[in-house]
């Protein structure tokens, strides 16, 4: 997997999402995190009173023919706080960006099964996107747990 970056539009979307998730504590510029899949923009969010409020990272997963860029944010306990779709580049199947679908990931912890059709609802006609985004969340969660220091 190549490195993942953010263009201005996605960076702004990420900034708004982080502000919504973590409030004023979110920092503006991401670090570039080295993973075995390539470099990923990532944030370690410091709590205002000191300590860690959480962490977030950007990942890219394959859609039917175009990539889907997601932002995954975890709390200090390593559980998912929110998932944001920063860029969906195909014309059809964009329902993975809907809040009702993304909401089911909240509270999921690293290693928890995220099988589409069981723990995660499928969206008819968007099976590739739903499986891809679920797999993306599953591989981001342990990385974020590492960032917040959850073993």
């Amino acid at each position, binding site marked *: 997997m190549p490195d993942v970056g953010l263009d201005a539009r996605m960076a702004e979307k990420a900034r708004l999402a982080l502000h919504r998730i973590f409030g004023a504590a979110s920092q503006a510029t991401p670090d570039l995190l080295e993973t075995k899949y390539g470099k990923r923009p990532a944030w370690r969010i410091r709590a205002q009173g000191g300590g860690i409020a959480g962490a977030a990272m950007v990942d890219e997963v394959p859609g039917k023919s175009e990539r889907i860029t997601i932002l995954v944010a975890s709390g200090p306990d390593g559980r998912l706080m929110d998932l944001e779709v920063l860029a969906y580049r195909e014309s059809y199947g964009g329902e993975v960006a809907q809040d009702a679908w993304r909401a089911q990931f909240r509270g999921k912890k690293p290693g928890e099964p995220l099988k589409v059709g069981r723990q995660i609802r499928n969206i*008819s006609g968007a099976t590739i996107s739903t499986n891809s985004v679920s797999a993306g969340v599953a591989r981001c969660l342990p990385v974020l747990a590492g960032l917040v220091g959850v073993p």
Partner: protein
Amino acid sequence: MLNRQGFLFAALLSLGTVASANEDSKTTLGGYAEAEYVNPVAGPFTKSHADVHRLVLFVAHGFNDRLSFHSELEIEHVLTELSKKTTTLTTIDKVTANGDSVKTKSGSVLTDVSSPGYLAVEQAFVDYRLGTTAGFRTGLLLVPVGIVNETHEPNTYHGVHRPLYANSFIPTTWRDLGVIAYGNPIEGLHLKGGVMAGLLGSNIGGASGLRSGRQKGGKSNAENLSLVARAEYTLPYAKLGLSSWFGGTSGGDTAVGDGNFDASVLVVAGDLRAEYQGFFVRAEAGVIELPDAEKLQRLYKKNPGERMVGGYLELAYDILPLLLAESEQALLPFVRYEKIDTHFEVPTNVVGSAANSQTQIVAGLTWKPHTQVSFKADYSWQRNQSDINGVDLVKLGVGCSF
């Protein structure tokens, strides 16, 4: 499965800004394929067959995040080599406008072509997303009517063959030149609509209704620009769809009428897909109106119905978690009940055929070792109201898309 130790990160590098990696263009390859073994165990046909029904190669190119090209090239039944016989046409007399007789040779024509296969462009269009929720596509497009026409990869439906409804009622794969705009006005609602080259009434009729009336985008007769629209609404566990097609079928034949909407056909079709904890429900139903069927019959004698109806209900359940709780695979017994009638109402000059009122029950098993790979086995029971030519088929198949 997830390996918590699978992710090793060597270092945190702090950078002021992150360079964009999304302006680069990209070409994607993909495709789908399906092969089948079909054994008729009852009915007039006794020979079984084995076939690579379809092999479709897919090439897409993203010029940037908004502008892309998509294409599908299809080979059906493996071979497209023609065994052809040509015959030179005899010299014919042509009378010119001023009354002179001129001898012309009209060249040679194919008089016998036999090939099991078929090579075709299934889709070829440019898609331009104007914003995050709207855009348009133009070129050779799939007609957005029903579920199967746009989503027809073999791993997306149960049974070795597509539903009868998606063959003889909604004639999949139905495609033609056109332009379609799409957009999401509110969350969960996806709308698309546009203008496409129409159907040809000179070929509509019989058991398969609109099927022969399709053009395929190769020098399509564009005398009847037709309107098509589809709305999809996504609910937490279901997706609802409503599609419609309206257009003339005269093909510019003045005997029928040279207006854009002459000998019009109206298709209205609804669909539902739902899934919950391993249960899957799929249903489609529709009606096709051809008010000028009498006129088409007078001119072309293909026995068109004035009204056609069809629908199916399919249930499936993933039993694999009951057997292997941790499995990532799926094993789905399914059953589908279908009914179509392309002679539901006929004009006075067409004798309604009971054979065109067809019922099919398909029951079988789909094993999906991966979401994009299906091994299939089914038994289908096909009957019609004429009580003859009922067919029972045992089918085995494999399909995948990537």
